[in-house]
């Protein structure tokens, strides 16, 4: 069961390769691309990217497992990542994580049975002045309260 990039993605990869003197540097962007194309970075995706760029799967796996943003397992449609670092904790992040956990019925690290939400604890997201902060897929949500979180999660399509 192998995977392959769409034509658009292949063209994007070509553009990516042209930016660097060494094709090795395309590994991180290629993995972002693979995650976008295939939903998550599966074993097949690793083997595919390895073949595309001319490296062993072990090499690509080493990179993919080092960085937190590459999901080696599928995540829900909405990946809810709540910061639990110092500033956010001082501003109540722990309570909010408990709140979201109760609301979704899952513990951090788990996915709802319908595959809609995955809840994670994140480290510092770089927006401490508007703590507490969470990231849902690509978007930051700041100055969170229980009400704001409820409104946001309930309102997702």
């Amino acid at each position, binding site marked *: 069961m192998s995977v392959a990039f769409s034509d658009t993605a292949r063209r994007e990869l070509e553009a990516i390769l042209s*930016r*660097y*003197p*060494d094709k*090795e*540097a*395309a*590994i*991180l*962007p290629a*993995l*972002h691309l693979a995650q976008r194309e295939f939903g998550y970075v599966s074993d097949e995706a690793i083997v595919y990217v390895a073949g595309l760029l001319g490296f062993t799967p072990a090499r690509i796996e*080493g*990179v993919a497992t*080092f*960085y*937190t*943003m*590459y999901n080696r397992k599928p995540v829900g449609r909405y990946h809810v990542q709540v910061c*639990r*670092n*110092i*500033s956010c*904790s*001082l*501003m*109540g992040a*722990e309570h909010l994580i408990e709140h979201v956990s109760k609301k979704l019925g899952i513990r951090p690290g788990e996915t709802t049975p319908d595959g809609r939400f995955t809840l994670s604890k*994140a*480290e*510092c*997201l*770089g*927006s*401490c*002045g*508007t*703590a507490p902060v969470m*990231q849902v897929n*690509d*978007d*930051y949500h700041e100055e969170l309260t229980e009400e704001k979180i409820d409104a946001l999660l309930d309102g997702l399509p």
Partner: protein
Amino acid sequence: METVLTTHFADERYRRVDRYLELGGYEALRKALSGPKERIVDEVKKANLRGRGGAGFPAGVKWGFLPKDLSRPRVLVINADEGEPGTFKDRQIMARAPHLLLEGIAIASYAMTIHLSYIYIRGEFVREAKIVEEAVAEAYAKGFFGKNILGSGFDLDVYVHRGAGAYICGEETSLINSLEGKRGWPRIKPPFPASVGAFGLPTIVNNVETIADVPWIVTHGGEKFASLGVEKNGGTRLIGVSGPVNRPGVYELSAGVLLRDIIYTHAGGLKDGKALKAVIPGGSSTPVLRPDEIDVTYDIESMGKIGTMPGSGGVIVIAEGTCMVRALSVLMNFYAHESCGQCTPCREGTGWLAKVMGRIENGQGREGDLELVLDVCDNMMGRTICPLADAAVMPAQSFIWKFREEFERHIKDQKCPFGNRF
């Protein structure tokens, strides 16, 4: 007070090149290109511009590390991997004034005879990366990047490279490895990046804010920039204040501003009239200060005298009633999570520190734990490839030294007096 960076932060159109040009943008680049490169480096040295990423290394000196021989192409890498807890200033520059950064890149590249630059943006900053990419495209379209910039004969290519989630990639050699497509492992030095860096080429890595300061320095002169700060620490700094204060956010202040003023004047003091219990002054890796230690100016030398640093400009305010053990436990978990795992003292030490701190907070501390923690800290500090181990050790040591009774109480009473809550 004169502002270098935040002057037009509130203008939502400032991120577009047309608006940036309207407000005087890229004039500094024109001025820079009209003269010799050495002049720019001179001004940056006169400016006493210390790196704004946390280490505070003088930018002009760092630029001078590049080899004189131009036979190998050089690379300028912008460190936009802002990950130090408590720090959120580079995000503002990228989102609100990306062309300040880009103009700075063009000028700095010209000054150092660099024709290739990468902006390494942490992966989580998806929106900011898009904004910067759009700004880069605009800069190319206007002829500020690319071939024969403004008819000067100078070529420069600039690319955005996104990270993928690793605090350690804020360390310059780790960042270089990550740029090259590898695991974000810091490199042993020598060789230093200025001789062997990205793709084996001489490389300079600078923080976003450091480079964003360059256009103003070129326009107004290094001395003027220096005068905005204090001796040895010139200019203004973007200082972020977070925690339970009335006005959290980023403030552009003189490098010599009083720490007390940052908290009480600019950030409006603590919410609900609470008393201050502790301040982490420069991002989580800097030694913590007690309330009786905040009458110090925020420059590198003065902070150094009291055993801490302004670091990455992230002031984290801790109010009375906060459990310091729990706070330290949060930080120890952070460093354990972010340790790249390459070298023994950090990999094993950060992991263990997180475990033992968790135990102490949960009422399972043992007699002798604190001495053991401090001894392990001694065995980690200065023994590793990069300063992440030091970054974990400094809060661990300073919290225990300055709030020891709180830790001892957790151990003696076998419970957290604050109820295991913030």
